[in-house]
């Protein structure tokens, strides 16, 4: 866990008072909506179809049980009893009243939670691997660096009025769970030949209307120079980024138009010209932040405790363990993913009761810590293996033990037309129908790893371009239609999917997806070949032929 210092606490509290005053002035008519809009957006407040939506940051996806309980409280007291975890380590409340927002913000501030920079053209929540600090083989805890960047960029005047929003993600593990290649800047921690820790810096990734996979701009930037190098990138972006056309304003367009070599040259020149601007991180500064992260006092535990051996005959437990429990860097412990994708449920939603219960379970079994991943699931990062059987029973009762992590029903979906004012089409009911079609866990196991991602419009909040199967809602003559892509992926081998055929109407989407999955099962050359690998080997055509032959 990270402990905020006095400065952070003061900043957050001052922000609440400031916002309270702004809301009062808005409600009295002293501020017009035009004047107020930018202020509310700076505090994560959007206006959606039915209500205001309040987006709250969960820096690098780490939460304490106390903070999660506070989310439950906000959901219950100010909303309709649930919250929605997003693809960027945020939580959204969908039914919040403007008049009550300052109170909700104040309640969150008491536990060190805020909504700064969760919207607007600034540096957004710096995200990270939800297994940070516990993943085996990790170079080091990437959250230290997320936090250093967060501190430097929060309310930084130069980064508060960028041409467009700006997103950074960091990973330190071999397998990229933070989707760094679809971020404006992606950082991969690694060691160079001299054993020094630094970053491969990628730039210009992003989805939306014009999707790009990020390109490497520098293979190695040492840790002490990372802030100044990011600053140089942002300066070049601030200088050349298009402010005249919202569709061309993201850094990915600039990188694409200049070409990565030219862009890199500009950044290097800027970096040199900047000289020493006081951004070099010395050992003390890094260690100061590192010391604010606390780690559990792990016990020395056996690799295979008796409790686990005894539970091995329980089929349901074993299925869940194999699916949702992952290796931990400390012997005797596990990382447990809590699926927020129950069959028939809206992906990423959690009720206040579930949040409270997970907070209790975190206290009991995970040193009071919870993680939030971009796949819209939660995780308990430090569970002793001996506790797994008891934890499974508790999670099962809560509807949080669906053994579908990374399987076909672990769908990423944006809120879509049920909530979002920008949407063309609904996302959630499509996801719900698909989870019903593939509700049989044996079938889902047989299919293997398969990510379905759904967005309700081209803004791509559901990351449809990088879904193994991507579904994008479009509108045709007032009707909901869906474009389907296959072969995308968001990990270290990130790639954009390819359109498989003409858009299909709402009622046919689930049938088409079933046909795609059937075609894959028929075409894969062995059971271990994942969907995305079959598409890579064969291309889209053989699947297209089978799916569209009769349509």
């Amino acid at each position: 866990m990270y402990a905020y210092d006095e400065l952070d606490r003061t900043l957050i509290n001052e922000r609440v008072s400031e916002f309270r005053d702004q809301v009062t002035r808005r409600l009295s008519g002293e501020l017009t909506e035009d004047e107020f809009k930018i202020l509310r957006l700076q505090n994560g407040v959007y206006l959606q179809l039915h209500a205001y939506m309040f987006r709250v940051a969960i820096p690098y996806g780490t939460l304490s049980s106390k903070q999660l309980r506070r989310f439950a409280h906000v959901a219950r007291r100010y909303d309709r009893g649930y919250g929605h975890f997003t693809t960027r380590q945020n939580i959204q409340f969908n039914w919040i009243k403007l008049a009550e927002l300052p109170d909700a913000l104040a309640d969150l501030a008491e536990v060190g939670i805020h909504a700064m920079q969760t919207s607007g053209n600034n540096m957004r929540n710096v995200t990270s691997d939800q297994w940070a600090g516990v993943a085996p083989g990790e170079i080091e805890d990437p959250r230290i660096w997320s936090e250093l960047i967060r501190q430097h960029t929060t309310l930084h005047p130069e980064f508060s009025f960028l041409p467009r929003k700006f997103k950074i993600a960091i990973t330190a593990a071999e397998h990229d769970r933070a989707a760094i290649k679809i971020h404006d800047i992606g950082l991969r921690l690694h060691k160079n030949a001299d054993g020094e820790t630094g970053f491969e810096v990628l730039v210009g990734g992003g989805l939306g209307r014009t999707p790009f996979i990020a390109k490497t701009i520098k293979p190695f930037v040492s840790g002490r120079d990372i802030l100044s190098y990011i600053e140089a990138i942002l300066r070049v972006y601030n200088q050349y980024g298009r402010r005249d056309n919202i569709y061309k304003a993201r850094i990915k367009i600039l990188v694409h138009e200049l070409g990565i070599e030219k862009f890199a040259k500009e950044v290097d020149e800027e970096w040199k010209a900047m000289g020493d601007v006081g951004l070099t991180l010395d050992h003390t500064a890094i260690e100061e932040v590192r010391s604010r992260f606390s780690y559990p006092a792990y016990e020395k535990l056996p690799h295979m405790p008796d409790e686990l051996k005894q539970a091995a005959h329980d089929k349901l437990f074993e299925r869940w363990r194999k699916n949702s429990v992952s290796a931990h860097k400390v012997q005797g412990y596990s990382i447990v993913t809590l699926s927020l994708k129950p069959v028939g449920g809206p992906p990423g939603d959690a009720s206040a009761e579930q949040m409270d219960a997970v907070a209790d379970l975190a206290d009991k079994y995970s040193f009071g810590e919870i993680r939030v991943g971009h796949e819209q699931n939660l995780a308990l990062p430090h569970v002793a293996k001996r506790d797994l059987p008891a934890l499974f029973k508790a999670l099962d009762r809560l509807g949080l033990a669906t053994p579908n992590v990374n399987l076909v029903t672990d769908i990423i979906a944006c809120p879509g037309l049920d909530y979002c004012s920008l949407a063309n089409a609904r996302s959630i009911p499509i996801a719900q129908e698909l989870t019903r079609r593939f509700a049989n866990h044996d079938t889902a196991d047989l299919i293997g790893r398969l990510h379905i991602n759904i967005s309700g419009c081209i803004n791509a909040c559901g990351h449809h371009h990088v879904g193994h199967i991507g579904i994008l809602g479009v509108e045709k003559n007032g009707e909901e239609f869906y474009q389907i892509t296959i072969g995308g992926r968001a990990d270290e081998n990130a790639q954009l999917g390819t359109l498989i055929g003409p858009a299909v109407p709402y009622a046919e989407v689930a049938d088409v997806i079933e046909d795609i999955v059937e075609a894959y099962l028929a075409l894969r050359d062995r059971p271990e070949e994942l969907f995305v690998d079959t598409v890579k080997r064969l291309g889209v055509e053989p699947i297209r032929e089978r799916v569209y032959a009769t349509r």
Partner: protein
Amino acid sequence: MVTANRTWDGAVVYRTAKQGWSTELSDSAIVTTSDEARALLAEATADDVGAVGPYIAPVELKDGGKVKPGNLREHIRAKGVTIDLQVPA
């Protein structure tokens, strides 16, 4: 009709013929020409304190004068989300 979101709580509201806002679609002022629609919108927009982001949206008039939302987006705004929200507790 002209619809917006109420300022203090964001609720969906419709502009009424009495120059106020109502949460009931059936209370909305229905206009049939673009001039009337523009006038209604201008009048609604002037009330910046009451509601946010007014716009003209279509309705369907059923037999017997019943007013229905004219498209899916307005249907969802009028009736609420189309999904079963029950998250298992």
